[in-house]
């Protein structure tokens, strides 16, 4: 009897394990493109998976996989008509926050390549020997069809998002209608880099050409698409690929060093970059953690960053992570409460501190007072976030020493100095000047 029960139990466990580990494969995977760059320039996550895996040299790329691309990663469409290049701005040169690039390919129907841009910057080129090539791009609730009129016609798309400052975090029932979940602001810039293109967007077809000419289209989540292309005399600086300056060469070397290390083991590469003490390497590692949804490791940077750079930029990456799509803030809240053991109130404070403050908030002395109170909070994450805002809002306090991985005593010392600089009920000197 016991044996039968044991077998039944074992079967149940096996079924349960299989149902968790063996994702339901709904059909054969569809090959839609091929990587043309070295190993580990792409990381892929299946649609129903949770972990990213680095791809080998010239890997096949399949529909529905989420692809995270290093700067310079390239792919070519299945029919060879379109080349796509990632121009992720890991070193934060762009006027908009496009730290990392991620997209999903789809099986193309009546076009040469079809994809959903999740975030970041991509460049799409017509690589045919002759004739036009077309791409269908989805993002948020948009569907754009881009026809690159001639060989070498090239366009860039840049998509990014952030929560508006002062927005209050609101916990939403996971079963609620997804459309009711609050969304961050998002913005997309479409730029013709070379040649002529036509773009079908918002029910309108727009003819565009590289500068000088109507070269730029914009969309944002508040106003939607504005299909009146803006004329540009020349390409903006950020859109021109710099390969010659010493900074560009250094950045290229950094990407290559990371790629080589990542080809062996991505997380080990990230850890070695984080431990290096070099600010550029640390930034690279932090962006990668965010891009690969490694919230656990990113959370460690928030709680016990070893250097000021890791603390400072780690919070930027977290803000970037929660701002990249609808529902990211809810996911982070769930991670904090269910995985990291924070109480609901603590998690709400963290989310609010990640969202930031409106100008009305900043006109109230109480905002600064509460931030200073949080400097001695029992949770280091809250202490670190409060300090991150304070040094930005009150530049006079930048000289107050702060240790992101410090003890309660260190925090108490910083708290006392901040209290002296911004007494209770008063605005800090910089805010007072603005008010006057």
């Amino acid at each position, binding site marked *: 009897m016991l044996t039968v029960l044991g077998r039944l139990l074992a079967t149940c466990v096996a079924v349960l394990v299989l149902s968790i580990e063996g994702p339901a494969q709904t059909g054969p995977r569809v090959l839609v493109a091929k990587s043309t760059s070295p190993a580990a320039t792409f990381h892929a996550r299946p649609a129903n998976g949770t972990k990213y895996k680095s791809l080998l040299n010239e890997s096949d790329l399949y529909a529905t996989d989420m692809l995270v691309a290093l700067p310079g990663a390239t792919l070519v469409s299945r029919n060879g008509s379109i080349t796509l290049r990632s121009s992720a701005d890991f070193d934060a040169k762009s006027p908009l*926050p496009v730290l990392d690039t991620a997209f999903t390919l789809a099986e193309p129907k009546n076009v040469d390549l079809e994809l959903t841009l999740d975030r970041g910057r991509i460049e799409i080129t017509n690589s045919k020997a002759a004739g036009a090539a077309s791409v269908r791009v989805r993002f948020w609730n948009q569907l754009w069809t881009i026809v690159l009129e001639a060989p070498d016609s090239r366009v860039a798309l840049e998509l990014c998002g952030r929560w508006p400052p002062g927005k209050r975090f609101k916990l939403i029932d996971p079963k609620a209608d997804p459309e009711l979940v609050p969304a961050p602001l998002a913005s997309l810039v479409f730029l013709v880099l070379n040649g002529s293109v036509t773009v079908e967007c918002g029910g309108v077809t727009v003819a565009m050409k590289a500068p000088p000419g109507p070269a730029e289209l*914009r969309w*944002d989540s508040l106003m*939607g698409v504005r299909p009146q292309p803006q004329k540009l005399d020349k390409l903006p600086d950020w859109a021109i690929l710099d390969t010659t300056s010493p900074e560009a060469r250094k950045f290229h070397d950094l990407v290559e060093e990371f790629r080589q290390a990542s080809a062996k083991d991505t997380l080990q590469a990230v850890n070695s970059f984080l431990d290096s003490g070099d600010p550029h390497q640390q930034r690279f590692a932090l962006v990668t953690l965010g891009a690969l949804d490694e919230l656990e490791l990113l959370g460690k940077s928030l709680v016990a960053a070893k250097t000021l750079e890791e603390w400072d930029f780690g919070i930027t990456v977290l803000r970037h992570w929660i701002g990249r799509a609808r529902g990211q803030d809810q996911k982070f809240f769930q991670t904090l409460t269910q995985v990291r053991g924070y109480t609901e*109130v603590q998690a709400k404070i963290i989310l609010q501190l990640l969202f930031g403050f409106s100008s009305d908030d*900043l006109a109230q002395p109480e905002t600064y*007072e509460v931030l200073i109170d949080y400097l001695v909070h029992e949770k280091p994450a809250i202490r670190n976030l409060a300090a991150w805002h304070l040094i930005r809002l009150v530049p006079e306090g930048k000289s107050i020493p702060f240790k992101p991985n410090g003890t309660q005593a260190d925090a108490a010392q910083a708290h006392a100095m901040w209290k002296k600089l911004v007494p209770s009920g008063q605005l800090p000197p910089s805010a007072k000047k603005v*008010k006057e």
Partner: protein
Amino acid sequence: MKWNRTRWCLVFTLTLTCSLVGAQQPQWTPTIAPPNPLYSMTPYRYQINIGAPVPTVYGSTFVGWTAPFTPAPQLFSPNHGRANTGPAWNPSGSSIQGYMYGGNIMGYANRVGGQRDFERAQQAAAIQRNQLNTANKAIHDQWAYEKTGVIVPAGAQAGGNQSDALQRALGLLDETELLSGESLNIIQSAIMEAEARGAKGTSPYLTPRLLEDVRFATPAGDALNLIRQWNRLPFPAAFAQPELRELRDNLEKDFGAIALPLLSGKSLEPAKLTKLEQTLQQLESAVAPVIRNLSFQEAIASRKFLNQMANAVKALNSPANSGLVKATWATEGANVNELLKHMAKFKLRFGPAPQGGDTSYFALHRALATYYFILTQPKK
């Protein structure tokens, strides 16, 4: 032949006059309608005007027919299908439904109403134009904040000159500005300036109920606000926690002991104020660890209450604030002139409306704006 020409001229003039006289209520609509791709036009930048400018106390207003110019086919314009988009102003003097006037008002008030509609429409168009880049700018600003710590605190973005601000405040273009007290402060300053120039007029009456809802900023204002609410102090939810209950009750008792004599016109007893100060200090020490474990909004509300209470104690300690509490407000009310004089004496400013105080703030705005119009109306 000569007669014929004259007759035609007369018929044309009569037709033009009738079309202007028989026109509808002023209707200003924003002339930009994104995302209509075929109707791209900057609002009020290019338009055809047939009419004449009319001088008013606020400057010149245009009376006549206005048609926006756009190279886009009118088939796609937001006005497509409308019989007539003008004239924008009705010289017949029919009623204006602005709350400040109520029923049929002719002449001057009508001109003001028409001008206000025009300003509202311009404001709406400007907001719409600004919104085109709102998301992009917000993201860019957040990115700048992250990168360098650059921030634009409140007040820095406030643009426009004093006259524009007064027009906005009088026209009630932004209700949030009114409920924040900002519009009232602007009108208050304009009234004080007009009175300083020697202007005089009948001042509207404010009821005790209305005055009860008025809130003041500045430390002396905090004292006045709290004293008038002595028996229902606005404790934030966090103060209901058991560990704070006793201290909260003590504070209520000590504060009542000070407020009651002041409200009945008696002078302040220093010993009672010292007792209140001690209780407040005890409460502040007990609240500090509690605040750290409140949500951000609750923590802000708790800090705000404590700061208001501390400001009130500080203000009451100052001899300059004797006579701050007007006992007659709660029984007899006051007129606008008396209220503003009292505010000037103690350097008070209007603060944000309390919850449920919207109606009183609208009524106060009406009273202040009316008084301002009376003071600035040209003498006949």
